[in-house]
């Protein structure tokens, strides 16, 4: 008898009964807990088999990866005609950037990896050295992409396109809009009436206007406002508009974060003799930014996807390249394959951002609730 086995206060922690934990226990309680559940499980597995079989068949097994036209594709096999992508992959990545100069873009992509790593992962071992590289990277990238210096051939902006264009606008927009958004959020809370009014007007105007309108302004009207003789490239104008647009949203997200900080935090900082800027740097922003991560990343993802809108002012992003491919007589009607490919590209980028933000939130979580 148990009563005889253990004295009071010395009862050990026993293992749970057999068949309630582990793979067997989970399967039993979740998939086969009753007769109807078991039938449903079997039925679902059969359905899944046919679905997956069909999908894998269309995507991979019966797909054609190399052909000269849609008609040739159909002759070879019945699945997806990925040849439209493989034959035009250069265009999808580099737009109409000259073949001989594409290595420059490759270097920019590889450089982006090393430049962003120390900014995204604060615990990186050789972070200090990489940060220097991050600081110089925008200039290196600009010279490589644009050319015209150090013997590099100058490349016309209307030849830019594809993923390269998405990355240029997306990354520049993201990098520039965050600091601007922070300044606007602080400006909106400022005690100085002038600063506050300017911030409020900027935010409300940018949020109140459709992005497409801003892009049209960038493509046509902005030249009227500039002093004669200045010739801002269309790409710079577009990046400015994306930055302003995203910054307005980010400012509001961060303002929410700032307002969520209890008043006691400021009082404690004030009581310790800290100045406004010290309090902002060490107390307000670290806490506000942590709260705002989901909202900020949300805005970033939105901005990244909105880069497809540049099609309306004649820049060819991956979607534009895809449309061109679909309307080509050789590949006419292969919209499913083309748009799926473009969608996959955007999904991978955006999903990565989303996972990163989750990781960051976890890392910064010091509440231990």
């Amino acid at each position, binding site marked *: 008898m148990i009563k005889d086995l253990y004295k009071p206060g010395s009862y050990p922690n026993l293992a749970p009964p057999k068949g309630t934990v582990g793979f067997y226990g989970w399967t039993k309680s979740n998939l086969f807990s009753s007769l109807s559940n078991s039938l449903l499980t079997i039925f679902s597995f059969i359905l899944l088999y046919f679905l997956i079989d069909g999908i894998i068949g269309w995507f991979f097994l019966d797909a054609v990866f190399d052909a000269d036209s849609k008609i040739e594709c159909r002759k070879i096999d019945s699945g997806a005609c990925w040849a439209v992508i493989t034959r035009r992959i250069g265009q999808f990545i580099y737009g109409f950037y000259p073949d001989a100069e594409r290595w420059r873009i490759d270097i920019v992509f590889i450089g982006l990896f090393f430049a962003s790593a120390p900014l995204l992962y604060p615990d990186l071992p050789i972070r200090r050295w990489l940060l220097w590289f991050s600081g110089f990277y925008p200039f290196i990238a600009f010279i490589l992409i644009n050319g015209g210096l150090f013997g590099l051939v100058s490349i016309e902006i209307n030849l830019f396109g594809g993923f390269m264009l998405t990355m240029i606008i997306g990354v520049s927009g993201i990098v520039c809009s965050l600091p601007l958004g922070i300044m606007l959020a602080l400006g909106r809370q400022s005690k100085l009436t002038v600063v506050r009014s300017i911030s409020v007007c900027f935010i409300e105007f940018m949020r109140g206007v459709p992005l497409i309108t801003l892009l049209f302004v960038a493509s046509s009207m902005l030249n009227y406002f500039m002093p004669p003789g200045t010739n801002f490239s269309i790409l710079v104008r577009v990046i400015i508009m994306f930055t302003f647009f995203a910054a307005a949203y980010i400012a509001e997200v961060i303002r929410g974060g700032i307002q969520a900080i*209890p008043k*006691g*935090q400021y*009082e*404690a*900082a*004030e*009581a*310790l*003799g*800290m*100045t406004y800027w*010290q309090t902002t740097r*060490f*107390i307000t922003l*670290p*806490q506000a930014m*942590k709260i705002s991560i989901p909202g900020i990343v949300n805005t970033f993802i939105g901005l990244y996807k909105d880069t497809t809108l540049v099609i309306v002012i004649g820049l060819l992003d991956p979607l534009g390249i895809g449309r061109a491919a679909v309307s080509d007589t050789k590949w006419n009607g292969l919209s499913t394959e083309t748009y799926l490919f473009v969608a996959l590209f955007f999904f991978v980028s955006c999903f990565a951002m989303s996972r990163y933000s989750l990781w960051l939130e976890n890392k*910064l979580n*010091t*509440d*231990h*609730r």
Partner: protein
Amino acid sequence: MVNNKKSISSKPVIEIKEMHKWFGNFHVLKNITLKVNQGERIVICGPSGSGKSTLIRCINRLEVHQQGDIIVNDIELTGDLKNLEAIRSEVGMVFQSFNLFPHLSVLENCTLAPIWVRGLPKKEAEEMAMELLTKVKIPEQALKFPGQLSGGQQQRVAIARSLCMEPKIMLFDEPTSALDPEMIKEVLDTMIELAESGMTMLVVTHEMGFAKKVADSIIFMDEGEIIEQNNPKTFFNNPENERTKLFLSQILNH
């Protein structure tokens, strides 16, 4: 009563003269006149809404008074920003809700202001912080975050954080009111130790045991006025004012 190792000097470190404060149209502090000498320990009590917290918050200018003078350490409190930071780094404050910085470790909470406000080198600031954390008996928690500590431990960190600025005066705004009963003692013990070291202290509290043991004088406030100021013996045994008597009977007989 605690023995006064260091005698109270007669030079006032805080001098408040005919001070008034309003919140909008509401007259919260009325004609406050108060002198606090170096090394003196003053306990302020009174019913809620009587202006106790507002009074001590005026001393480091978390609240702004509209009329009268407040002089702390020979510096008059005005709208001048330079004065303000000089005073705030000399006056420590402990809050009812601790107000630790949740995104910083206990050690960083203690070293942030010494490094950036007083300009101490990081190493020196950390050594001093560890010394003070040892004094409040939680050096082993230095690398944890505030959210991982109990309420009593958090309040002791808050006391250590204030002491890291080496203040001349410490203000306590109901330091034990947000704590579970079993944690009140550890915080009060820390405060008693601090009092024994000769720190000038102004404490808003309902802990009458603490007041009896530590205070040089007790102030009773009601409806924005100082009703009575007396030494603990007279205050508890022969209060002069009727309202003081009523208040004491309410908090002592339960």
